[in-house]
């Protein structure tokens, strides 16, 4: 079966001449149906640039991005746009402070013509309930919500568009650890019940360990290593991956032992 998403030799260069920034360099990987692929890397490694190319915010400089077996055109069709959705890092800024939560969720329904017009508010309420919020939250302004609730709304907005692939760009980095845990469980559950695929962008390897099926490690725009999550955490190939694992703060001796054995005496 063809993978849902497939990148082949994808590169992105911003600007030209001596000031050109090669943000993504010759990257190839696949995401299969129902899979959660984690994209890990430090800031500036090109993770968001990669997400933007998959979403069609801008085109790639070279290479090919295929979705469901066909090359994605630079101008996306309505169908492609609804099939690939985004959840961003900053929950507060990703919702318009001057519009109600419901209006933000409904936008996708209107653009993609999902459901009957008269039915859409009900669909909005369903979407909110799916992420564990009461339906009447749709009347609220984002300012009346906590960070975790805003992030749930952003997830509801993505889900309401009936996507097949969701790009999660650091979805829990701005959240407190208790809230993060709940959002991670929610995302995990939704993926299973709806058969979604995720590209889960993060810099937190301990999150990756617990949510991803496979991991792609990025450094300065290059794909350093891409393997099953188990393999990455049992037998990291690249020195850089070992360094990343060695820097993860841990809270139990058990983890500490594992970390020391993996980072293999490399300087942290």
């Amino acid at each position, binding site marked *: 079966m063809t993978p849902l998403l497939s990148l082949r030799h994808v590169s992105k260069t911003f600007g030209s001449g001596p000031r050109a920034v090669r943000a993504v360099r010759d990257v190839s990987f696949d995401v299969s149906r129902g899979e959660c692929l984690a994209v890990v890397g430090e800031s500036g490694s090109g993770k968001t640039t990669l997400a933007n190319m998959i979403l069609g*915010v801008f085109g790639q400089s070279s290479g090919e991005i295929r979705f469901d077996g066909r090359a994605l055109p630079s101008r996306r069709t309505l169908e492609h746009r609804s099939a690939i959705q*985004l959840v961003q890092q900053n929950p507060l*800024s*990703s919702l*318009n*402070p001057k*519009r109600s939560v419901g209006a933000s969720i409904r936008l996708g329904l209107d653009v993609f013509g999902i459901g009957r017009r008269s039915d859409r508010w009900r669909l909005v309420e369903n979407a909110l309930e799916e992420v564990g919020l009461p339906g009447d939250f749709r009347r609220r302004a984002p300012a009346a919500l906590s960070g975790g609730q805003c992030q749930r709304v952003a997830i509801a*907005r993505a889900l309401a568009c009936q996507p097949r692939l969701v790009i999660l760009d650091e979805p829990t980095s701005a959240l407190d650890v208790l809230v993060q845990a709940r959002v991670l469980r929610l995302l995990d559950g939704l993926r299973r019940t709806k058969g979604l695929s995720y590209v889960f962008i993060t810099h937190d390897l301990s999150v990756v360990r617990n949510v991803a099926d496979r991991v792609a490690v990025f450094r300065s725009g290059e794909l350093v290593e891409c393997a099953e999550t188990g393999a990455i955490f049992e037998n990291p190939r690249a020195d850089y991956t070992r360094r990343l694992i060695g820097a993860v703060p841990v809270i139990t001796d058990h983890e500490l032992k594992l970390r020391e054995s993996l980072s293999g005496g490399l300087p942290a």
Partner: protein
Amino acid sequence: MRRTTVILLRNPLSMLGVVLVAAVVISAALADYIAPFPEHRGAVVDFVHFNQGPTARNVMGTDLVGRDLFSRILYAFRISLLLGVVVLAIATPIGTFVGLLAGYLGGRAEFALMRLTDVFLSIPPLVLAIAMMGVLEPTLLNAMLAVTAMWWPWYARLVYNITRSEREEGYVLAAEVIGASTLHVTFREILPNCLPAIITKMTLDMGFVIIIASSLSFLGLGVQPPTPDLGSMVAEGARYLPDSWWLTVFPGLAILVAVFGFNLIGDALREILGADQ
């Protein structure tokens, strides 16, 4: 909205602003009933009482042809407010439209629109208005046109700057990824976030438009006699200073009250709406 009103009324300074502006608006609206001599708004001559200081009959004195100054000031408020409202009602949408498109679209549209704006901004406002009035006839309508022409670029700049920063916010990306149209993103997503700053600026500008309009008529380029206008009244009276001080002082105070009132409210709104740009 209710919160804004409550806060506005709690602070003594903004309360004063509300009172001053309310007084100006009410006297303009009800001039026909408040003015002791409503007919004095027009070309009336009363040589029995001409050029008199304040008395019980004429609390602010009379002008050179014997008309009651108090009555004329009440009617002059009408002209000032009308001018302010009309100018802003035209300038704000134009400037907002230009600023939104330039700020959101970027590229050539941004270059063209903002250079045009800069051209207008580089000419001192009064000079532009005077130049226009030199070509056009000095009527109330043309005065409005002239002031509008110099006013919209300020809104274009303001809205452009806000749009430029809002464009980077996640909610704009979210709408774009869904595939919302340019019109939707600019008017439904970004514009509501510009409104606090726009409303604040409009309130502050009511005062400034009144001053500029008064300056134009002070120079004889605005509203023409016998229509009462605060600027022309000050101009006319200035020739008879200091003996007939009331001819200048009362219209001058009237300008001050209106401008000061709008400024106090504008300052308070800026704080409440958090529209510090």
